[in-house]
């Protein structure tokens, strides 16, 4: 229990820390944002004055920070100049789309990496391992950008898959089954790109974790007891490898989120990525901060989830933290 509280505290600390850093950026960034905005003819001087008053730029930093956090908690994430609307609702839709993409990719990537990693670790150094190693090396050397673009080029040339967007124009008029199918078809390319870019490292780490467990004396003892191979793998080895694997899971959330940023832009998937990019180019300050915060929340939440899983899966952590 203490462990969970500690992890919760840690997550909270991270969120607070990131929020402070983000806030400091806005307050201290070279080239006052509002000065730059003044140069933008679309934003009238009255808007700027109103915003300055609203964000109380004349008050000391800690007060502004408190104010900012206060409005964040109330769901007010600021105002987007480009879209002329509050930030939160815009971000929420985009965040949902990113989440959809990332979760799908996560499931698929782990679904492939776990069996392949285990298979590879089993035949460590022998043919299956070598094939898998070659495959992962081959994927690793292709930079993510090249991978995404390459898939896009292939899709365009073959004309089979849609090359952008989340749904077709005729989405609304489709049946439920049609809608799901449409979504899946649009998901295919981005998910494939994301999975392929994350797969090599994932497989390697799974392989390493499982291989290490397979070497353990307790497993050899169990083998000596005549326990069948399959049971050995799935009921003895895999649970023992739970600690590094679950930690890897937490870590992979971060890499997938980063990857999704690029792939969303390249493949025109309407997630946080393209939105963030637009905001940066348009100097839409509060959207940028909002986007950063959202991605951090996902990452921290995902890692906390991993911590929970770890608590449930690894008895050592339960006993260690409960004993005094």
């Amino acid at each position, binding site marked *: 229990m203490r462990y969970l509280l*500690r*992890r919760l505290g*840690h997550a909270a*600390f*991270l969120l607070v*820390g*990131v929020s402070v*850093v983000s806030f400091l*950026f*806005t307050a201290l*960034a*070279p*080239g006052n944002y509002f000065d730059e905005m003044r140069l933008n003819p679309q934003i009238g001087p009255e808007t700027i004055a109103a915003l300055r008053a609203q964000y109380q730029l004349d008050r000391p930093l800690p007060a502004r920070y408190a104010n900012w956090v206060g409005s964040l908690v109330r769901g007010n994430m600021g105002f987007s100049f480009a879209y002329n609307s509050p930030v939160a609702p815009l971000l929420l839709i985009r965040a949902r789309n990113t989440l959809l993409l990332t979760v799908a990719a996560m499931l698929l990537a782990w679904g492939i990496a776990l069996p392949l990693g285990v298979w590879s670790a089993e035949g460590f150094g022998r043919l299956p391992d070598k094939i898998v190693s070659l495959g992962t090396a081959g994927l*690793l*050397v*292709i*930079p*993510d*950008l*090249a991978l995404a*673009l*390459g898939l*896009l*080029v292939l899709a*365009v*040339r073959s004309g089979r898959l849609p*090359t952008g967007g989340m749904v077709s124009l005729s989405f609304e008029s489709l049946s439920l089954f049609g809608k799901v199918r449409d979504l899946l078809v649009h998901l295919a390319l981005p998910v494939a790109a994301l999975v392929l870019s994350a797969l090599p490292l994932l497989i*390697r*780490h799974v392989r*390493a*974790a499982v291989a290490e467990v397979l070497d353990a004396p307790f497993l050899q003892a169990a083998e000596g007891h005549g326990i069948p191979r399959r049971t050995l793998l799935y009921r003895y080895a895999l649970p023992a490898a739970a*600690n*590094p694997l679950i*930690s*890897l899971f937490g870590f992979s959330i*971060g890499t997938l*989120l*980063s*990857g999704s*940023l690029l792939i969303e*832009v*390249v493949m025109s998937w309407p997630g946080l990525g393209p939105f*963030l*990019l637009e*905001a*940066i*180019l348009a*100097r839409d300050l509060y959207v*940028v901060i909002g*986007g*950063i915060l959202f*991605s*951090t929340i996902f*990452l*921290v939440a995902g*890692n906390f989830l991993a*911590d929970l899983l770890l608590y449930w899966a690894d008895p050592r*952590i339960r006993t*260690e*933290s409960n004993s005094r």
Partner: protein
Amino acid sequence: MSLRGARLGWLIFLVLLHATVIFPGFFAPYDPSEQDRKNPYLPPMRIHFLDAQGHFHARPFVYPLQLRQGSFDQSEGNTAKPVSLKFFVRGTRYQLLGIIPFRLHLFGTEDERVYLLGSDSFGRDQLSRFFYGGQVSLFAGLLGAGITLLLGLCVGAIAGYYGGWTDALLMRFSELFLALPWLYLLFALRAFLPLSVGPLQAFFLIVAVIGAVGWARPARLVRGVVLSAKERDFVRAARGFGATDAYLLCRHILPETSSVLLTQATILVPQFVLAEMTLSFLGLGVPEPVPSWGNLLASLQQYSVLVTYWWMYLPALLIVPFFVGYLGLGSELQERREPYKIERTSLGNFA
């Protein structure tokens, strides 16, 4: 760190590859900003040894491309005018290593321009832009990795050696950086800096930003090495001779980190090259007309280009050998050591 066998092989491979971007003027037939507006989006020219009449030529040649009659995107070679490829020609002027004026190119042609990788929307030679762009991208990657490793080394050494509050504080701070997905962090940092700056400033800006993002992981690794190194007997013995902290760090402890730093370098450089490419691709990096590997691919963001001029993708494939080199070297360096383990203890720290 011994340079033996496979390691030496990979190193030589990498050095050779980098030679093409250290001396881009020599390897590239043209200046990257030389435009030829009459020939936009040409596909790559094929190298022939047999001409249309079936004669064999010892010297390779290409056919200049022209638009097919009645089409706006199909090109064909003009078989009436084969253009030979000559090697070690005197071509456009360039500056060797930025200072020495030079005119020698690896290969070139006499009248018509040769586009081995095709041309972009302004008619600029993609191959030349690839070599010059590699200079920018690779240099950004190397410099960025250098900054990150330096930062990581300092932070890790201080945290590991002095322990206590300093250590706890620095590690918590590093966790903040690890808590953000790195590309988001990169974008955020980039966002808060002026957008439209000159190419040189943009370059250093990006390098600084990239370097500032990734220091957390190397710092933790260095810290681990320092923690175990400072308990070693030979460090204690040196203390027994009256050595100061600085001496112990510099002469005994930090040399232990060399293998970790080298392995990290082989991982970080490709990652940072990718970061620069991503930024430039999206318009947040090195601006036109300076070529970078990201810029080269930027035109692919337009659907029309993707469909009709798909060969603009080819430079991306040429980048792969560089990554192969770094990966190969990295895996050779890591061979002797355990794979990087990610494990958590009940304290929630990464082991």
